[in-house]
């Protein structure tokens, strides 16, 4: 890429000098990165404030539980989402079997389901007092728990299953987009050279899709690390639960911030390790020959297997829980609550749209800014800036509080000093603060998918466009955006759906008398009143379906050369 930039610079007659960094892309990228980094730095700052020492206590008691539970949860969720996500993406993209057209989009549906909601629903169904175990007891005449064995839903395995069911769509989405962007030529070459379909998948298609799959998986992992609702409800002692415990029960925000920083370093280490693992590999497409995907006709036995395999996650992750919610919503129908929920739905949708559009604009700007200038510091800053996803939501929200509070009170002090007027709080406790929180948290989503997608566009494209007289912005608009728009749309929709579900940031940062669907669900769900929460939960899911459908249409069209 250095060559590309150099070519471009020469084409514009700009000699490299020590002010070369001073352009809108670099400065803009640095500024945005600083804004995104500020709350994370605030968390690091909090970790340095005085507080009781928690470490000796934690090391002696529960730290090993926190770490082992978290690692096990991550491993289970990773295995689950990878096998469901990549597997279904591959068969749906490459093979023909009954229901394929429906599965293409329906596989995304569970994404709209908040993990804590699905956890409540399944607990209702599967716990000892639930209908399934009651039925089993009636049939077999068992009277107590000791007489039979049934998997415990409120367990590590249960939490991993719940998260797998709602998080696999991230992997599915990104790996499917990657499979669709692949040239069939490399697969055909592999087959011609004697590899069967399975080996071609594992030795050619999968490695080529690795950057996209890794992004999907890292999103899943960060969501898993971040989850509070599910693990709290199931009382699975994870690291995040430990952070909240130290913070709220021991009244020790410094200790909680220290634990959060530890989590942050762990995530940075994982990301670095993965990048190191593929450091010398390049994933630019080397050919622009895109013929239609083959669409292997599966033999009956395999077709049946594919249909069941694709239907199962949809039924378990969406149809069943949505059905239960729907049932509750009808039983608990209350016209007053319904009008309330509608009002909150407007807030949720508006806020999520604004955040999603801003996130993609900023993410694209940053990814392209990094592509233009390959400086290590800039790269590091941008990567660091997109770590907001790795910090537990409430802790990050406290980081945002500290940042905005500092800014507001700084301005206020300055204005009082120089003008004798008090400005009070300008940003704190406003919709802008909530939007800022969303952006910091979900920048990883938009930046990550755009960066991965841009990485696949060969630098020769930049070189050609720039030497033909286009500036950096025109090149982005005319060359890159059309190529990567599939990924951009994916990112917009992912951020939208995530904002609809977002809870901790909204709760802590919102203005007076302001509610979203998620906060409405939370006030009842926190009291285990699923019935009262069901309508709003269903609304979150309903709003999530719309982007999911748009998304799947767009992805189908995203294959280069197919419009």
């Amino acid at each position, binding site marked *: 890429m250095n060559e590309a930039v150099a070519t471009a610079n020469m084409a514009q007659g700009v000699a490299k000098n020590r002010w070369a960094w001073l352009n809108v892309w670099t400065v803009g990228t640095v500024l945005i990165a600083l804004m995104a980094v500020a709350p994370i730095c605030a968390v690091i700052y909090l970790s340095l404030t005085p507080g*009781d020492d928690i470490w000796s*206590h934690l090391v*002696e*008691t*529960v730290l090993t*539980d926190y770490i082992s539970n978290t690692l096990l949860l991550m491993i289970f969720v990773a295995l689950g989402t990878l096998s469901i996500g990549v597997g279904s993406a591959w068969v749906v993209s490459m093979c023909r079997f009954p229901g394929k057209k429906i599965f293409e989009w329906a596989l995304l549906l569970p994404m709209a389901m908040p993990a804590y909601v699905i956890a409540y629903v399944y*607990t209702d169904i599967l716990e*000892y*007092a639930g209908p399934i175990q*009651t039925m089993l007891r009636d049939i077999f005449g068992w009277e*107590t*728990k000791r007489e039979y064995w049934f998997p*415990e839903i*409120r*367990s590590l395995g249960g939490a991993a299953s719940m998260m797998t069911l709602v998080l696999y769509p991230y992997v599915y989405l990104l790996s499917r987009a990657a499979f669709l962007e692949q040239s069939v030529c490399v697969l055909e070459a592999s087959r011609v050279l004697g590899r069967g379909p399975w080996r071609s998948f594992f030795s050619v298609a999968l490695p080529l899709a690795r950057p996209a799959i890794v992004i999907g998986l890292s999103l899943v992992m960060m969501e898993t690390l971040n989850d509070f609702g599910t693990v709290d409800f*199931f*009382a699975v*002692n994870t690291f995040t639960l430990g952070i909240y*415990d130290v*913070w*709220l*029960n*021991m*009244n020790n*925000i410094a200790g909680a911030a220290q634990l959060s920083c530890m989590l942050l370093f762990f995530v940075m280490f994982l990301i670095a390790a993965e990048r190191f693992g593929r450091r010398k590999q390049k994933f630019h497409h080397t050919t622009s020959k895109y013929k239609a995907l083959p669409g292997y006709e599966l033999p009956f036995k395999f077709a049946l297997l594919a249909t069941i395999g694709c239907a199962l996650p949809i039924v378990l992750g969406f149809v069943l829980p949505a059905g239960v919610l729907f049932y509750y919503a009808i*039983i608990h129908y209350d016209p007053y609550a319904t009008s309330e929920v509608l009002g909150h739905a407007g807030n949720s949708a508006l806020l999520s749209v604004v955040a999603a559009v801003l996130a993609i604009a900023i993410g694209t700007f940053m990814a392209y800014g990094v592509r233009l200038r390959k400086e290590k510091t800039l790269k590091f800053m941008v990567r660091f800036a997109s770590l907001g996803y790795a910090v537990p939501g409430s802790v990050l929200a*406290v980081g945002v*509080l*500290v940042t*905005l*509070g*500092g800014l*507001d*009170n700084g*301005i206020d002090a300055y*204005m009082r000093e120089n*003008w004798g*007027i*008090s*400005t*009070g*709080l*300008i940003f*704190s406790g406003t919709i802008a603060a909530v939007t800022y929180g969303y952006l910091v948290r979900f920048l990883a989503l938009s930046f990550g998918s755009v960066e991965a997608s841009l990485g696949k566009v060969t630098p020769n494209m930049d070189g050609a466009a720039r030497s033909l007289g286009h500036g950096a912005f025109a090149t982005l608009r005319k060359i890159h955006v059309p190529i990567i728009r599939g990924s951009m749309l994916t990112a917009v929709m992912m951020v939208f759906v995530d904002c609809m579900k977002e809870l*901790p940031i909204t*709760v*802590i*940062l*919102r203005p*007076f*008398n*302001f*509610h979203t669907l998620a906060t409405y669900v*939370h*006030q*009842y769900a*926190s009291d*285990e009143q699923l*019935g*009262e929460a069901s309508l709003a939960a269903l609304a979150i899911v309903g709003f999530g379906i719309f982007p999911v459908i748009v998304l799947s249409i767009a992805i189908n069209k995203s294959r280069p050369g197919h419009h």
Partner: protein
Amino acid sequence: MSFKKITGMALGAFCVTMAASAQAEEVNLYSSRQPFLINPLLEAFTEETGVKVNMVYIKKGMLERIKAEGENSPADLILTSDIGKLDNHVQAGLLKATSSDVLKEKIPSQYRHPDGLWYGLTTRARIIYAHNKRVKPEEVQTYEDLAKPHMEGRVCTRSGKHEYNVSLLASIVAAKGEEYALEWAKGLKKNLARKPQGNDRAQVKAVYQGECDVSLGNTYYMGKMVTNEKNPEQKDWAASVFLVFPNQADRGTHVNISGGGVLKGAMNEANAIKLLEFLTGPKAQALYAEGNFEYPIDENAKLHPVVASWGKFKADEMDLTKIAEYRKIATRIMDKVRYNN
């Protein structure tokens, strides 16, 4: 310079608008109590006094928000449940000493801060729910009984780290010392029928279904279940248990409060106190009882019939600030016995 002027003017105009809005009769509230619980009370307050209540419901991070907003925080008043949360705000130096004859008269002294930093608004007792048939009343008379060998495999509780359980354990630390509390927690952990999970209501459901024989829970869950028309099955759960108010022969049953306090720098201090006074009054106390079956803070107030049906009991009169102080130790004990594993 001109830029400075323009921003200065713009900000000035902004402030005037802000100041204008601050003049209206209102009170700004940060609450960790759910809107569905307290909105009816706030609406009644506005109706009676004409003072508008603005609220943000924040469960986690309320203290950090007030701290970060600093002197300019718009919040006048906080409402939370559990003494621990109120005390955290005291420790952070966020609450203001206020005095009100009405509050002093209505609230017994153990349920308010000596300097008027916080005031209890309702009380709830942490009691034992025991199965009608499988448990004999003499088996569980005290919290201590729950940790004894005869209860092995028969107890259900929610997470040991939940504030209600932490405060209960803190009250045991306060009454009998840290060593005994550790032994108690060990014993209780040993007696659990299942891994701690769910909320207090879910434990009664488990007792009903035969997973365990006794559970720990706050009093108001009984009221919510007995009267639940939307989920009538909960009436069956409630019917399967009897209530034990523990330790009647000695220190009394552990009682916690929900309460509120005025913040330093409150712009609407008078209205904030007015709201607190309203919340201790008969109308609000009746609404509290109707909505959530809590005990009124005013000992002379009339009880909700459901609440009255549980009878009178002796409450542990240990200083609540002591209990708040021991919460850290209690949390660590829960870690030491790995209660939630």
